[in-house]
C-alpha cells in the first residue's frame, strides 16, 4: 500500500485545526487582557505550543507568580507527553534523529491522538509533519487573531465550539472500540480513574491523565498476558 504523506497528514489534522480555533482565539484575547503584547502572546504560541500550560501561565502571571514557578508548573502539566511520545515512537517509521527531534515539537494531546489512532503502522514522518503543520498553523494564527481583534466569537458559537476537541477525541476512539473489548476496557478504566482523581482532587489534571493512562495500559496488559490473549 502506498504510505500516506504530507497532504494526507494535513487532511487528517483538519479537525484539530477546527478544534484549536476557538481555544487559540480565546487564548489571544485572554493574553491581551493579562497585559501581554501581540508579539509576546504570539511568541508564546509559536515557541511553547501547549494549550493547557499556556492558559495556566496567564492566570499565574496575573497572580504575580515568579517566572521559575510558572516554568516548573508548565513542566508538570506537560510531563504526560513523555508517555505519549514514547508510545508514538512505536508507531512511527524509523528516521534520522534530527527529523524526529523536529517533529517532536509538534506533539500535543491532539496531534498524538490523531497519529496514534491511525490504522497503519510505520507512519511516515511526512504524514506527521502534515498533521502538525495544520494544527500548529491554526494555533499560532488564531492566537494572533484573538489578540488583534480583541473580541471573542458570538457567545452561542463559542459555547458550541468548545465541544470540538472532545468530539474529535470521541470520533477517534469510537471506531476502534467497535467489537474490541480490549480497547473499550482501556478507555473505560482510564476514564474512571481520571474521573476519580478529578472528583477527589487527589491529583492535578496533568498528573491525573498521566497516572490513569499508565495504570489502565498496565492493568490491561497484565490481564491480557495472564489470559494468554493479546
Amino acid at each position, binding site marked *: 500500500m502506498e504510505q500516506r504523506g504530507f497532504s494526507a497528514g494535513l487532511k487528517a489534522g483538519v*479537525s484539530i485545526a477546527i*478544534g484549536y480555533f476557538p481555544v487559540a482565539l480565546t487564548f489571544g484575547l485572554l493574553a491581551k487582557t493579562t497585559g501581554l503584547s501581540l508579539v*509576546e502572546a504570539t*511568541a508564546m504560541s509559536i*515557541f*511553547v505550543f*501547549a494549550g493547557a500550560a499556556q492558559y495556566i*501561565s496567564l492566570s499565574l*502571571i496575573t497572580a504575580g507568580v515568579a*517566572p521559575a514557578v*510558572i*516554568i516548573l508548573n508548565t*513542566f508538570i502539566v506537560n510531563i504526560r*507527553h*513523555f*508517555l*505519549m*511520545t*514514547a*508510545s*508514538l515512537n512505536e508507531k512511527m517509521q*524509523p*528516521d534520522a534523529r534530527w527529523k524526529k*527531534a523536529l517533529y*517532536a515539537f509538534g*506533539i500535543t*494531546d491532539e496531534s498524538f*491522538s490523531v497519529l*496514534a489512532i491511525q490504522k497503519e503502522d510505520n507512519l511516515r514522518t511526512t504524514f506527521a509533519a502534515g498533521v502538525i503543520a495544520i494544527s500548529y498553523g491554526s494555533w499560532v494564527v488564531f492566537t494572533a487573531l484573538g489578540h488583534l481583534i480583541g473580541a471573542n466569537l458570538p457567545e*452561542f458559537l463559542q*459555547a*458550541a*465550539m*468548545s*465541544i*470540538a476537541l*472532545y*468530539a474529535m477525541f*470521541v*470520533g477517534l*476512539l469510537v471506531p476502534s472500540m467497535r467489537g474490541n473489548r480490549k*480497547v473499550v476496557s*482501556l*478507555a*473505560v*478504566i*482510564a*476514564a*474512571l*480513574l481520571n*474521573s476519580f482523581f478529578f472528583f477527589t482532587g487527589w491529583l492535578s489534571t496533568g498528573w491525573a*491523565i498521566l497516572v490513569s*493512562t*499508565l495504570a*489502565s*495500559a*498496565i492493568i*490491561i*496488559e497484565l490481564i491480557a498476558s495472564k489470559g494468554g490473549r*493479546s
Partner: protein
Amino acid sequence: MGSWIWWTILGMAIVTYIPRAIPLTFLEGRELPPSIQNILRNIPFAVLGALIFPAIFFIQDNIWFGVIGAAAAFGIALLGANVMIVVLGSIAVLAVYSLFL
C-alpha cells in the same frame, strides 16, 4: 511586560519540549521488551478515555452543554461517521441547543 516575560516564554518552551523530544529521539532504533511495547501500544486508547472523561462534561459552566455535546458526539460516532462529521455535527447540535436557551 518586561524582559522577564521573554525568559518565562523561553523557559516554558524548553520544559515543554523536553518530554516531547526525549522519548522520540532516545528510543529511536531501540527494541524494547515485548511487555513494554504492549503497554505503549495500549496508551493511545487509554489516553483518549482520560482526555475525554470527565473534562467533556465541563466545557461550559452549564453542565448540559457537556452532557448534550457528549451524547451528540458518541451518537454520531456510533453511527459510523468520520471524525470531521463527529466534530461538526456536535458543534451544530450545541449551536442549536444554545439558540433555544
